[in-house]
């Protein structure tokens, strides 16, 4: 099984997210797409699912082009693990039992405990939702799909995704975490100016 992107360029709202990006994701490998917030990691996954159309370049699966018309058929081969929902409000902090975790902060609040507010290391990494169970449809798809696309998965999924890759499946994850980057067979770093492979 092979998922290939060739000379892929994508702009959203007038901003170029990535340009002339090429890579191949093979079965049996875990590929990690990383990069700073807003560099198009999630958008790239959506391109692979056919929800977004490239400005230039192509996506192919087993040599067959992924187009808006063929995408529904290809999606039947995929399991998509969405990014755990980030908070929509301006979160000051999250405290869960036994673990103090800090979310991204919105506009600086001017109320009493603003001094206790901390900045998160990475704004779009939902650290606090490690233990959120996957939706049923994802669990079912994980059992059968040869292509697995995981958007900013929690650490608890790392070993599972790795073992799924070991079964010969294509696993593509987006993450900024060192653990995922280190455990991946291939890392694609997205940046505003240049995208490269490590």
């Amino acid at each position, binding site marked *: 099984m092979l998922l290939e992107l060739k000379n892929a360029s994508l702009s959203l709202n007038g901003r170029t997210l990535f340009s002339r990006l090429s890579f191949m994701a093979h079965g049996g490998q875990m590929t990690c797409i990383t990069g700073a917030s807003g560099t198009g990691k999630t*958008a790239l996954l959506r391109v692979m699912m056919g929800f977004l159309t490239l400005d230039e370049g192509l996506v192919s699966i087993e040599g067959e082009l992924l187009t808006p018309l063929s995408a529904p058929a290809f999606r039947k081969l995929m399991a998509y693990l969405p990014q755990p929902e980030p908070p*929509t*409000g301006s979160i000051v902090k999250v*405290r869960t039992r036994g673990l103090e975790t800090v979310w991204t902060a919105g506009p600086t609040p001017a109320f*009493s405990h603003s001094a206790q507010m901390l900045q998160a290391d990475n704004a779009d990494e939902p650290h606090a939702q490690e233990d959120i169970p996957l939706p049923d449809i994802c669990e079912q798809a994980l059992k059968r799909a040869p292509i697995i696309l995981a958007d900013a998965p929690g650490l608890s999924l790392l070993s599972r995704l790795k073992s799924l890759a070991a079964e010969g499946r294509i696993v593509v994850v987006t993450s900024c975490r060192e653990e995922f980057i280190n455990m991946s067979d291939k890392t694609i770093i997205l940046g505003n100016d240049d995208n490269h492979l490590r």
Partner: protein
Amino acid sequence: MTITYVSIISCLVLAAIPGWLLWYFTPRLLRITAIAALRMTVQTAVLGGLLWLLWHYESPWLNLAAAVVLIMVSALTTVRYGRLPVRPLLLPVAAGIAAGVALTAAIILFGVVRPVSPLSAQWLVPIIAVLTAHVATVNATALNTYFNALRTDRQTYLTQLGNGASRRQALTPYVARALRATAASTVGNLSVTCLIAIPMLLSGMLMGGVGPLAAALLLIALTVGAIAAQTIALIVTVWLADRRVFDRSGTLRQVITGGKAAAWFLFVVTTFIACKPNTAVDGVPSATETDSSVTSKVTTFSSHEQNSTAAKSTQKHKSPTVQYEIPAPLKDRPEQVLRRKAYTVSYNQDTRQANWVAWHLTKAHTYGRNQRSQEQFTEDNSVARPRATDDDYYSSRYDRGHLCPAGDNKWDATAMSESFLFTNVCPQNHALNKYEWNDVEILCREWAREYGAVDIVCGPVFTETATPKTIGRNRVRMPDALFKVVLCRSGKPKAIGFYFKNDGKKVSIESAVRTVDEIEQLTGIDFFTLLDDATEERIEAQAQLKDW
């Protein structure tokens, strides 16, 4: 029957009695009532004139044309009151209504009533009018629910598609939500219909010469037909709107709103011809609301396409720079503090509701044009699942009780919308929500007007038990009581607390008064930490309603 112009004008003298009473007790309402009465008179006169024309010419083609006009008016009303974008959705909505209404009208006319001339003005026009009015009323809510759910919960849709579901399968949960909204609206409509509409319609038919049995049977046929028409219209609309709403890759299109001309046209047509829909009482047992008379479930379907950063975009609301009191961090229970435009909430994942909600109520915030009738309770995506949903409350006999009330958020559309998030809601006994709790909310608004501003914190109280009572599949915990503390900084600072058991037993506000110290003991929450210690100690130790 002969009613002359002179006799009808003399009948209007009757209006002098309520008019005088209104002028005497609430003069402000007299003008509003007079305008409403005048508008109704003009509408009725215009409608009467149009009907006279139809009766006078008695042409099947003219009657069919009138039916088409009624369907278009119904579609426009649906789009307007459903807050839907005109350009992409007007035609699908009109086609859906046409399909539903035409089919059911044909069955009623040709299969049930079977008059000598089914296309006559006497039969065709009233039946089409009844059906279109009902469909517009109900489907505005249903379609708004459908598109609003798609907009706000697009991730579920993409997750379904991304895991190989077909478009139809991915849309099924949203259609189900819309049908549920239709069902709730229909139940509400039916309860109103039984009490008000049916006696009026029956009276009309009896006065028109129809026998009592035939009139009752016709009403039954019309009621069943209306429910069938609304369902057909909804399904056909969703089906037809599919291509206009989604692009080929399955992504929700950028919604194109209508231009000014269309908006004006809508405004003129629907205001002049159509009576205001959505006046039905929400039939859901838990939907009882207290400080507004209208309970339609409609929210804005905005034109924002959500992309991968959609969730973050909502963080960009301008944060008010008002400094207000929020309680000290909680050590003994889970807490996720979320800042909204008008309030701050400490959310507890275990109880699926707030530990507390705090806000700053100013005099200016007690007024505003944003009405709760345009909102619906919404699942809060900011917090992890399992979390409270409408379904949890739907099957319970408890109200979705606001903590930061809608009445304190009329000043801003976002604030009003956010007050309907389930993280600002707790299961509340209906009687408490309707009476005592509502009274305290009104009292707080009065204080805000009197003192310029007050700080308020409120929330549920739980007593320790091995088997806590919960509602719904998501196990939203039932509060044993509710508390509210209010701080006034104007002049010599003062504070007061209220504690109500969530059992609906009638209590006076005076007997619910507690000191803030007592509330702190009952809740384990430390309030008003910003104050200097001496002031805090003083105001938290005493509470007298007569001081306020």
